[in-house]
């Protein structure tokens, strides 16, 4: 059984080996620590801050200052909000490309079960997202070190690292419903449209104060991007998120196994 899963994984790795999209996601996601670095440079240099009106105003609005704590906060919030977009893109590609490339039909009548093929895709999705999160963290640490940000020994460091890790996991959990829309819509368009919609709704719903029960707002709130709204998160918030993820996973499996595959 595990051997079949391994074979499925091998096949998935072969597919992403030459995919330019794999590199593109890392480049796109690395914009977050780079932008964070720009904020830090501006805040460290009062003269530069005076010349950078809009960015300075934004930095003031976010109540950040030029230190490690603020920088890690930016990275975490970028994960909670930007991660929904980038991870959604990753899920759309992994699950939707088989239809867009016309290769999905080749995966339906094989000695390896359809469920294992999907499970291999979910594992690749998780690994890809974790790699993105680690890559951003490393880039962030490097930028912070280069900028010689103060307060690295701050005891909050490990706490914010844990928040970053949990935010990453919460964001990864949002992948399965996107996988379902990729299969249901037989391509990229439906899942990408779904990701765009959830991004909009996550902002609107979070602003109304109900984001703690809307799965796509929860990683952002947890990351601290919503400020004091983070305190609204409770056990039910995580239950809703996990239930959404599981529902997405089982819907994906059931659809792939039982729906007519006419494309």
């Amino acid at each position, binding site marked *: 059984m595990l051997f*079949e899963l391994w*074979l*499925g994984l*091998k*096949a998935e790795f*072969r*597919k992403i*080996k*030459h*995919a*330019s999209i794999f590199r593109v996601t890392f480049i796109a996601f690395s914009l977050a620590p780079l932008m964070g670095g720009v904020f830090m440079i501006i805040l460290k240099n009062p003269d530069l801050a005076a010349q950078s009106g809009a960015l300075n105003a934004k930095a003031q609005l976010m109540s950040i200052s030029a230190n490690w704590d603020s920088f890690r906060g930016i990275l975490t919030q970028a994960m909670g909000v930007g991660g929904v977009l980038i991870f959604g893109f990753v899920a759309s590609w992994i699950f939707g490309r088989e239809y867009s*490339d*016309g*290769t999905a*039909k*080749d*995966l*339906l*009548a*094989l*000695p*390896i079960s359809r469920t294992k*093929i999907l499970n291999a895709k979910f594992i690749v999705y998780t690994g890809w997202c974790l790699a993105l999160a680690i890559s951003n963290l490393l880039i962030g640490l490097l930028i912070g070190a280069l900028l010689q940000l103060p307060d690295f020994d701050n005891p909050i460091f490990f706490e914010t690292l844990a928040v970053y890790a949990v935010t990453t996991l919460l964001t990864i959990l949002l992948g399965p419903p996107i996988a379902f829309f990729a299969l249901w819509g037989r391509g990229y368009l439906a899942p990408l449209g779904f990701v765009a919609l959830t991004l909009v709704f996550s902002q609107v719903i979070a602003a109304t104060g109900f984001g703690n029960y809307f799965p796509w707002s929860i990683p952002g709130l947890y990351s601290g991007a919503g400020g004091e709204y983070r305190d609204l998160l409770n056990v039910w918030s995580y239950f809703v998120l996990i239930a959404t993820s599981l529902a997405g996973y089982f819907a994906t499996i059931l659809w792939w*196994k*039982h729906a*007519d*595959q*006419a494309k």
Partner: protein
Amino acid sequence: MLAIQTHSLTKKFGDTTANDDISMHVSKGEIYGLIGLNGAGKTTLIRMLLGMIKPDNGHIQLLGNDLTPKFSLWNEIGFLVETPFSYPNLSVRENLDIFFDLRKLKDPALIDKVIDQLKLTVYTNKKAKHLSLGNQQRLGLAKALLHQPQLLILDEPTNGLDPAGIVEIRTLLRSLTENGASVLISSHLLSEVAQIAHRIGIIHEGKLIKELFAEELETQLIKKVVIHTKDNGQAITHLKKSEFDTQIVGDRIYATDEKAITSPELITKLLSDADLPPTEIYVNKENLEMYFLRIIGK
């Protein structure tokens, strides 16, 4: 043991009946040609045979086993459905490597063998997106043949191939069946299928309307003698007197009886003796496409 057997297969998509009560079989070692117009229901039938679409009614047996979610003989079946797409950024070999893994194959020499068999050797390391249409088709066939299946289900396998490629594939499929494999091949061209299939099924508007052995085809084609004279009216009177079954169609006389077809020189002599020598006379045999259109009522 039959390679394929279907019983009353029916599939509807909304109000459209894609397949209607189709019962057919493919014997071991047989090439069965399924022919129909585009949209006749060939691909739906093929997808049902591969478990990609569930029938609303009826059931399927492949290699003697019921096609259920537990069906476990997928490594005995090779398939090509519609346009054979491959992973565009992967080379020919890498595309085959994927299916080597997914089919749990053990012998890596199978990849080289199928590459050689489909004459893809010079393209082994070329990305699929840079292959010509014909070579993409060959790669699709390579994926279908990689694991040396007992049963091949091929939807329009010669699409995009040049004439030499078509002959190669025909020869390849014949040699496979000589070794015991069975093939279901679909096409919209009867002339193409007639050259390879042992048996032919004609599908139209979702129904299997006719099945026949390839050798029966010849006897089914309508033949007639086409005649033109200076005075067709007088000529047909003479022909009818001599008990030829004739009729005027446009500015030609058609003689359709066996005597006329086997001995058209009798007509020439008869008309010449009556001072109406034919300005044109020839035996016309219905071609396969005309036959197909006649059968489906077009």
